[in-house]
Each structure stands twice: as structure tokens, then as C-alpha cells.
């Protein structure tokens, strides 16, 4: 009778060639981005050295090592006869990643749990949210030693203390964003649930949680990089030598004689952060299948 079937907007299925083309385009864009950054870095160095730029910092070998030297540093051993730097970096990265993963998971679960708890009562929100915000205004550098020493006295292994510090940075964005997502259903959607005489748990499970997922994933993207930063920073006061944080402290002390080692470690840190971020993005794509405009 209606013949409205043709009105539905079907997204055309991509052919294999189109998907490959899209993927190639992305890879190309990333490569172009790296090339542009590389060019800007080396260009500034080249001009800066010749023009004698001293503000905001002097442009020279120490402050701006060549990018190819940073990469070459990765292939060279730190001590004669020792393993190449990249091999050491690999072990440090794995160690730090372990702390970050545990911290990310811990912070994610705590943040999510807090959000669910807070979504259930306005009084709890009024009472607890200020303290959650205050927790983040305390500098992590002040909290880290207390956590390491405090937990250490209880016999907790140092790397686990560092994971707790990473969790401290992770739980906050997860709690705040997820809470926003849990509270996002509009009055009509809640009225609909009420018309079904749906209980609180049902509303949470069927409406609030699914509605919060895009918010949760935006938070997890922030948390992914924050957990890596938390792990790196947490290693410093714990005097942990086995991770990237320890390496950074170490290379910092020898910066004037080998700046490229510190820079190479920075690159490795960035790569670890990117891997974490990518893991969340991929998970999001697998979990959420919804309108493009709804993907946060």
C-alpha cells in the first residue's frame, strides 16, 4: 500500500578495491604527515643554526638533534659490546606497558563503577563529585611518592604501585565521561521506560549503559594515553630502572653528551601511547556499530 521501501537510505557496500584504496590513502596521509613534521624540524634547525636563533631556545646539536640521529641512536649499543638501544627500549617499553595496562584496566573499572554509582542518585553526585574533581587537582608528582612508599610498606611490588598511579590518572576521565553518557538519555526515553514499568536496573542495562558507550570510548581514548603517561611519571619517584620512565631520568642526566638517546626514548614513549590509543579505537569499531554522527 505504501511503497515506501525505496525511502530507506542504504549505505552502499564498499567493494574490496574501495576498502583497499581507503586504507592506502590513510597510510599515505600518515606518511605525508611524518614527512612534513620531519621537514619542519630539520628546516627550523637548518635556518636556526644559520640565523643564530636563540629564542625561545638556542637551535643547535644539543636542543634539536637530527631526527636521523635519534633513529640511528636506536641501532647503536649504549655500551661497547652491549645490545642495541632499541633492544633495551623494547624491554623498557614492555615493562612500562605492563604497568600502564594494569593501571588502565584498574582505572577504567573504578571510573566506570563510580559513574554507575553516581548515575543512580543526585545526592551521591552532589556529595562525591567535588572530591573526585579535587583528586585531580593534586599534582601527580606529589601523589606518586606517597603511593609508592605507602603501598611499598605493605609489601606491594613497585611496578604495581606505578600501575596504581596510572589508574589514578585514568579513572577520572572515565568516571566523568561515562557519567555524562549514563545521564544522556532524554526525558522521552525515560518516560518510555516508565510506561513499561521498567525498574532501575533495567533502565540502566537497556538504556543508560548502551547510551553511555560512545562517551565511555571517548574517555578510554583519553585514558589510554593518560595511563602511559601515568606509568612513565610513576616510575620516577619509585626509582624503577626497568621502564621508560627510569630510562628518561637516566638519559636526562647524560643529555649534554647524548641528547639523541633521550629523544629516541621519547619516540618510543609516543609509539607506546599510540599503540594504546589504537587498541581502544579498534575495540570501539568492533563494539559500536551506529550512525557515523553518533560516534563520539
Amino acid at each position, binding site marked *: *500500500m*505504501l511503497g*515506501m*521501501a525505496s*525511502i*530507506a*537510505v*542504504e*549505505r552502499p557496500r564498499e567493494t574490496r578495491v574501495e576498502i583497499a584504496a581507503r586504507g592506502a590513502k590513510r597510510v599515505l596521509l600518515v606518511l605525508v604527515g611524518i614527512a612534513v613534521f620531519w621537514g619542519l624540524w630539520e628546516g627550523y634547525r637548518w635556518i636556526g643554526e644559520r640565523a643564530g636563533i636563540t629564542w625561545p631556545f638556542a637551535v643547535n646539536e644539543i636542543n634539536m638533534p637530527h631526527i636521523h640521529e635519534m633513529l640511528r641512536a636506536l641501532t647503536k649499543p649504549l655500551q661497547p659490546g652491549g645490545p642495541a638501544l632499541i633492544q633495551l627500549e623494547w624491554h623498557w617499553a614492555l615493562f612500562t606497558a605492563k604497568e600502564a595496562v594494569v593501571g588502565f584496566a584498574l582505572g577504567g573499572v573504578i571510573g566506570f563503577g563510580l559513574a554507575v554509582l553516581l548515575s543512580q542518585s543526585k545526592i551521591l553526585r552532589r556529595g562525591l563529585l567535588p572530591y573526585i574533581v579535587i583528586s585531580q587537582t593534586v599534582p601527580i608528582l606529589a601523589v606518586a611518592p606517597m603511593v609508592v612508599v605507602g603501598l611499598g610498606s605493605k609489601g606491594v611490588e613497585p611496578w604495581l604501585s606505578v600501575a596504581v598511579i596510572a589508574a589514578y590518572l585514568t579513572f577520572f576521565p572515565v568516571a566523568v565521561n561515562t557519567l555524562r553518557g549514563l545521564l544522556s538519555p532524554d526525558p*522521552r*526515553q525515560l*518516560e*518510555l521506560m*516508565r*510506561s*513499561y*514499568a*521498567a525498574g532501575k536496573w*533495567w533502565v540502566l542495562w*537497556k*538504556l543508560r549503559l*548502551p*547510551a553511555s*558507550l560512545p562517551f565511555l570510548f571517548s574517555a578510554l581514548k583519553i585514558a589510554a594515553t593518560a595511563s602511559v603517561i601515568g606509568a612513565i611519571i610513576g616510575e620516577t619517584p619509585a626509582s624503577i630502572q626497568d621502564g621508560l620512565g627510569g630510562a628518561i631520568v637516566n638519559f636526562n642526566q647524560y643529555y649534554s653528551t647524548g641528547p639523541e638517546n633521550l629523544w629516541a626514548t621519547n619516540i618510543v614513549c609516543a609509539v607506546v601511547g599510540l599503540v594504546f590509543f589504537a587498541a581502544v579505537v579498534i575495540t570501539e569499531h568492533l563494539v*559500536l*556499530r*551506529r*550512525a557515523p554522527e*553518533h560516534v563520539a
Partner: protein
Amino acid sequence: MNEQAAAVSITGVSKTFDTGVTALTGIDLDVQPREFVSLIGPSGCGKSTLLRIIGDLIEPSSGSVEVNGKSAHQARLDHDYGIVFQDAVLYDWRTISKNISLPLELLKWSRDRRSARVKELLDLVELEGFEDNHPWQLSGGMQQRVSIARALSFEPSLLLMDEPFGALDEMTRERLNLELLRIWEASGSTIVFVTHSIPEAVFLSTRVVVMSARPGRIGGIVDVDLSYPRTGRTREDPHFFELVTEVRERLAAGGADVLLAEEAPS
């Protein structure tokens, strides 16, 4: 359930909001089983508020509402009614089938029973083939039909509709009017329908309840004695126009800002 009970029985209902605004005062109205009653009136006359009071989504300040011979509250707990809003209020993360079967999940229907019922409903609202689509892939009119199918899914005896076609274009609206009448006759349910369109109210209803504003009250009731099934032809029936005029005049008598024939510019 008492067979003789009115589908909806409203006695002396008033509603004053916390803001001090009196939305409704002294509402008395009975709706018999299988009736199609429209509530029409200017904005601010409390017609949507009245619908929500029937559905126990808000409570009246005084007076009482019975649905199928029990309190509105008990009727809601018993899933005696389904509701359709102006927006379809579909869940984007669910497919069309899953949106329709949402209330059935709450009622703990088995998976097989749910999918059989969804199939029936998709057939009823003529959306076969769209079960695996997501809401955003459908037009506004199609989304609203999904919403109607969802409201009908658990076979409530009463359907509450709050300007369900208000956001749609005229042609889609007229088509869905026809379809709603077909669904109403097929499902045997009672419908309370809020609208601000006079022709829509007359075309659909067995009775049109004309409300006036500030404070919201019932200004009069127009019996629509057009025979069913109503078709596109009904809209061209001279008696249809007479009834439209009668509703318009009652709205004007209630203080609504409508244009009457004698005031129309020549």
C-alpha cells in the same frame, strides 16, 4: 478485568505544576473500549499533560483516573497501555526488530516468541525487510511506524498517542492516518490521540474532545458520525467539512486563536 469497565475513566482531574501553573482543571471524561478519541486544543490546554496522567507518567493534583477499571498506576504496572510520542524515541544502537521487541524483553518473552511477534508487527506496519536496519537508516514516517509497532507489541488494550504525526509532512501524515485506522481496526485497541490538527482529529476519531486553555478544560465533545472504513474519499465528504467546522467553532468558543469562516479575508 471487568468487561463492562470503561477503557479510560477520568473523574474531576486537575493538575497544578510546582511552578504554580494550572495545566488542567475539572476534567471528566470516559472512553469506551474500542473508541478512538482525539484530544485537540491550543497549545497550553494541557492535552499532553492529560495523556501523561492517563499513562501514570505524571500524577494529577486531584481527581482520579481509572484504566480498564483499575487505577492508572496499576494499569501501568500491568502494561495495559502502549505509548507513542511525537518523536519515535527509538534506540539508535538497536536494529528495527530489536527496537520493536524491547518491551517484550522486559516482559521476559522467549526469543522465539519475540521474533514471531516482531514478524507479525513488521507485517502490520509494512516494514518487512527492514528488520536488520538501524533507525537512522529510515525516514521519519517509517521510524514512527516502528514506534507504533513497538507500542502494539505486547498487545495493550489501550494506545496513547501524543501528536505522533506532528513532525511529519502532510502527505506522509495522511498516509499514516489511513494506516493507523487500519491498525486500530485490526488490533481492536482503544486509542487516545493528542493532536493539534483539526482535519486529522475528525478524520481519525469516533469522538473529538475539544479543550481550551488557561486553565486547561474540556470545552465540548464532537461525535464524529462518519462511517468506517474511512478512506481518502472521506476527506472530500461534505459532512467531513461540517464536522471540521464544528470543531473549529468549538475551539474558537473556547478562546482558541483559529480563523472562522466569517472572519476569513474575502
